[in-house]
């Protein structure tokens, strides 16, 4: 009996410690500095060099916040001045003259001049290791007119150039700040890298030398979560202030209390594509591809796989692009028609998807629905990014996949027949080329037609447009309604 007493005492001691810990922590949790914010993200960058490493995570964290370009994209998808106060386009639309902002310095202290523009844009061709740098192939030369004027000459008129300049390709680097891009980014932006705890978080501190309006939040911590539930729990328990992108939409009702949380629901550039391998049977046959599009009940898919959040789309254009047309009526849910198109044949196909929540959820619905028309899809989740990129994206060894194509204005990927869709329609390529060179109206008309062509050809199926779902603690303001740029802009974020 005496011994039981000891045990109970021990247990009590333990509980006591826990309780004490709980108490003190509750207090210290509330004392977080007002001007510091922490934002939960899904994918941690492997390094900080987006000139040589693919992936959305690096520009998401650094572009606009640490690195700035001459121009930037606003919430409505329009080009706005940033480091360039203004720019003039020559009548032949081949010469762009940028007037640079004065008194801009890099976080290293070096001044920002037209020399840096020449350096940075030139570096894309010489040092960048990404294939997207081909978007700048259209640049003929970049010249410094004076310290605050830079002139870019294009080989031909391009509607896409200025837009590309607003992406990471247009980021301005200091001539003295590119020695260790992977670990030490140097930019002109409102933030600079504070600390990087690998596997945990990146801290951005306000850049004291920033040329523009100082951001409201002095410190922004980007916390990385591999698990959607863990991220939700972190917001629920005050570990973070913002979930940058909800990965478990069914859980949103946890944040329904408006006295505690703010929810933002908007759109993104992310088309969740059911990719079909146009290059090999059975989906080299247009009828088989069309059958897939008829066989899928997109509404049901969105409702079950992603809690009905997001929009249905029918082609590779998000509603925020000027040439958007509603194409969801092209292939209404019609399993009978799908069976008819398949001609009574049945297929077994490899559905190789990235092991990401939206893909795994959607794949199960797709599989179930395709089974109804005689297509057996074997789901194989591959680790994202490495293995999926290797097997599906690079080798094209797949029949079907599901991936969210987040890049803005990315219809062009269907024009590249070596792209993993293996879609090959010269007419589509011509439309895109003509759109880039033509007038603004021409661009819009051509791209509308291109989107229709893609849909008619059933080059892929578009499951839904990924929603911009942000949840934040009540009082956090400046959250972007739509996520259509490459970056998550922290400059407007504030608490209370």
């Amino acid at each position, binding site marked *: 009996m005496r011994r039981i007493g000891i045990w109970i005492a021990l247990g009590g001691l333990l509980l006591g410690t826990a309780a004490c810990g709980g108490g003190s922590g509750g207090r210290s949790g509330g004392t977080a500095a007002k001007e510091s914010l922490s934002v939960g993200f899904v994918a941690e960058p492997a390094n900080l060099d987006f000139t040589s490493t693919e992936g959305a995570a690096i520009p998401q964290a650094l572009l606009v916040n640490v690195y700035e370009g001459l121009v930037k994209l606003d919430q409505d998808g329009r080009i706005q001045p940033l480091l360039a106060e203004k720019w003039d386009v020559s009548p032949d639309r081949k010469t762009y003259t940028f007037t640079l902002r004065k008194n801009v310095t890099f976080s290293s202290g070096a001044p920002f001049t037209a020399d840096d523009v020449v350096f940075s844009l030139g570096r894309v061709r010489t040092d960048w290791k990404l294939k997207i740098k081909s978007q700048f192939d259209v640049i003929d030369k970049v010249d410094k007119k004076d310290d605050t004027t830079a002139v870019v000459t294009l080989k031909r008129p391009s509607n896409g150039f200025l837009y590309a300049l607003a992406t990471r390709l247009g980021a301005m680097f200091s001539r003295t700040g590119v020695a260790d891009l992977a670990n030490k980014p140097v930019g002109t932006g409102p933030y600079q890298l504070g600390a990087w705890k690998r596997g945990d978080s990146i801290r951005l501190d306000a850049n004291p030398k920033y040329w523009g309006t100082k951001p409201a939040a002095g410190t922004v911590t980007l916390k990385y979560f591999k698990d959607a539930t863990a991220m939700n729990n972190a917001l629920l328990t005050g570990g973070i202030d913002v979930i940058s992108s909800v990965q478990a939409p069914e859980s949103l009702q946890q944040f329904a209390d408006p006295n505690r949380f703010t929810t933002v629901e908007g759109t993104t550039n992310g088309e969740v594509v059911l990719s079909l391998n146009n290059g090999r049977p059975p989906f080299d046959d247009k009828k088989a591809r069309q059958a897939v599009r008829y066989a899928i009940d997109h509404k049901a898919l969105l409702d*079950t796989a992603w809690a009905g959040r997001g929009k249905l789309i029918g082609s590779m254009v998000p509603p925020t692009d000027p040439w958007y047309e509603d194409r969801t009526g092209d292939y209404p849910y019609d399993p009978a028609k799908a069976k008819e198109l398949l001609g009574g044949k049945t297929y077994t196909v490899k559905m190789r998807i990235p092991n990401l929540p939206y893909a795994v959820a959607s794949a199960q619905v797709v599989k179930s*629905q395709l089974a109804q028309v005689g297509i057996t899809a074997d*789901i194989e*989740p591959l680790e994202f990014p490495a293995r999926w990129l290797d097997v599906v994206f690079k080798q094209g060894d797949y029949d079907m996949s599901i991936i969210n194509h987040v890049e803005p204005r990315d219809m062009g990927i269907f024009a590249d027949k070596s792209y993993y869709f293996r879609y090959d329609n010269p007419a589509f390529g011509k439309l895109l080329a003509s759109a880039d060179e033509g007038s603004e109206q021409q661009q819009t008309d051509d791209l509308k037609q291109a989107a229709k062509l893609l849909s008619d050809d059933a080059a892929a199926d578009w499951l839904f447009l990924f929603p911009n779902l942000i949840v934040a603690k009540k009082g956090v303001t400046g959250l972007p309604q739509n996520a259509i740029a490459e970056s998550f802009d922290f400059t407007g974020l504030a608490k209370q």
Partner: protein
Amino acid sequence: MSGRRLNLGLVTGGALVGVVVAAALVSFVWTPHDPTLVDAAGKLREPGGGYLLGADKFGRDTLSQLMVGARTTLYVGVVAVGIAAVVGTPLGVAAGMAPRSRGWLSELIMRVNDLVFAFPALLLAVMLGAVYGAGTLTAMIAIGVATVPAFARVARAATMQVMVTDYVLAARAAGRRGPAIAVRHVLPNIGSVLIVQASVSFAIAILAEAALSFLGFGTRPPTPSWGRMLQESQELLFSTPRLALWPGLAIALAVLGFNLLGDGLRDHLDPKLRSARG
């Protein structure tokens, strides 16, 4: 002396395992609904009607998923334990039978065994999954390989006990060769120990499969698996906790069942072994 209580364990364990096995067998011929059929209209259907335990966010019947999940669980367990037994037992017997003059053989086998032991199931599964793609098969192989040392150790210890018994000494004196002794005397006598080990390993395999599925290295969707059901239910833990409850309960009861069965068998088959490693 405490025989009655231990029998209770055996009976309870047997019953729990029996339920799992029965559910798995029945699922081959009948489930209330197609466990993978997505039904948007039945999303998060409450229990009742034809859906005894309700449905998940895809409108899939939870009971049907549990039943087919039992199949997955048993499948993984049987293959993993099978691999472990088939590889580990001969190694252990060989190590246990090795005469003193060939002590190095025993030593070598056991050292390699220790080395394999240093690669736990999860590590192997992650590595295998990285090479061949994660799935039920890689999970089974990883768990199986990681369980080999347990079998080898138990088989070796039991063999060493058998080797000093009179009938083996007699058989050796009569000039019987090693393999003959192994088959005629050793295996039948260490059988009970191995059965116990199999039962305990089965429980461990179920837990390992659940952990792997949770990490995304286990059974592929949409094949129902308890571990993945649990993982998928996480986002709905607040609003629909029953989705986590059922697979969680299924895992716990199955593991409990196999553990109780193992302990019960141990006591039943050989009371001396009660303290042995397990």
